[in-house]
């Protein structure tokens, strides 16, 4: 008899893997983004099953709400049309599949039921009063407060960097471009055309 939890886990993990494959194999970048969003949604469900409510929801808000929107925006903005020929895609595919399969097998051996079976690790068990958000908060604002501040700094720097990289200067003002002026040369601006001389007036 399969209980509800097991059923939910397998359903969502299967969906997770399928949508991961969708990200990799879908033809259009937009659908890749959509599959990725689905991935994150499934993950959120799985993390909620792990009683990691805070991170699950943070994943939902941060990623699906902000990051994936950004991705979608960029994909839409660039609107790149690349003809995807299947042949190119599948050139190394068998080889990579073997490698990936081997890696999964070995990770299965290393991390799978042999090493972390229920007998060894037990089932997930929390008291009724367990509060994931509180547990994280208690540690984060005491023990990890400095890394937290640093993270904030990193985010700020990333924001500034992203703006600095893409900012193209004001588009409205008419300003001098000094380097361009300095680089001006005769060759670029002056064309000498040889032509027959024209006499003024007639004969």
């Amino acid at each position, binding site marked *: 008899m399969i209980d509800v939890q097991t059923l939910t886990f397998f359903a969502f993990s299967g969906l997770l893997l399928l949508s991961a494959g969708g990200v*990799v194999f879908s033809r259009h970048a937009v659908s890749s983004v959509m599959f*990725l969003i689905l991935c994150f949604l499934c*993950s959120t469900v799985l993390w909620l099953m792990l009683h990691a409510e805070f991170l699950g929801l943070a994943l939902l808000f941060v990623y699906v709400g902000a990051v994936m929107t*950004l*991705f979608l925006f960029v994909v839409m903005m660039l609107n790149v049309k690349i003809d995807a020929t299947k042949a190119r895609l599948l050139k190394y595919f068998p080889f990579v599949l073997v490698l990936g399969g081997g890696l999964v097998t070995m990770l299965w051996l290393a*991390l799978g039921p042999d090493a*972390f079976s229920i007998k060894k690790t037990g089932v997930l068990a929390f008291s009724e009063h367990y509060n994931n958000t509180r547990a994280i908060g208690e540690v984060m604002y005491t023990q990890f407060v400095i*890394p937290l501040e640093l993270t904030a700094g990193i985010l700020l720097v990333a924001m500034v*960097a992203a703006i600095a990289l893409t900012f193209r200067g004001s588009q409205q003002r008419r300003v001098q471009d000094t380097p361009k002026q300095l680089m001006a040369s005769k060759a670029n601006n002056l064309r000498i055309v040889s032509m027959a001389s024209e006499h003024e007036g007639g004969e």
Partner: protein
Amino acid sequence: MIGLAHYLVLSSMLFVISFIGIVINRRHLIVMLMCVEMMLLAVNMHFVAVSQYFHDISGQIFVFFILAVAAAESAIGLAILVLLYRCRQTIDVESIDQLKG
């Protein structure tokens, strides 16, 4: 019953799929970035699962930091991508080979 091993194997498979995605992807640079995000997700899942099963909350703190850094990374990555597109009018992975020896 669902044990730790289920989660670990699941995240390992997710990791391998996204890695394969990076390797075989020939079209969109942006899909590569997405695959990177997926790899980070796989690692995060590892962290969360182990943290919850062994009752050690610092694993989840780590996930928090990874999320933050990943967000920063994708922001800058996308900015570079936009710049790249502006310069070269393409983000085709095959045409980006300036490092060719």
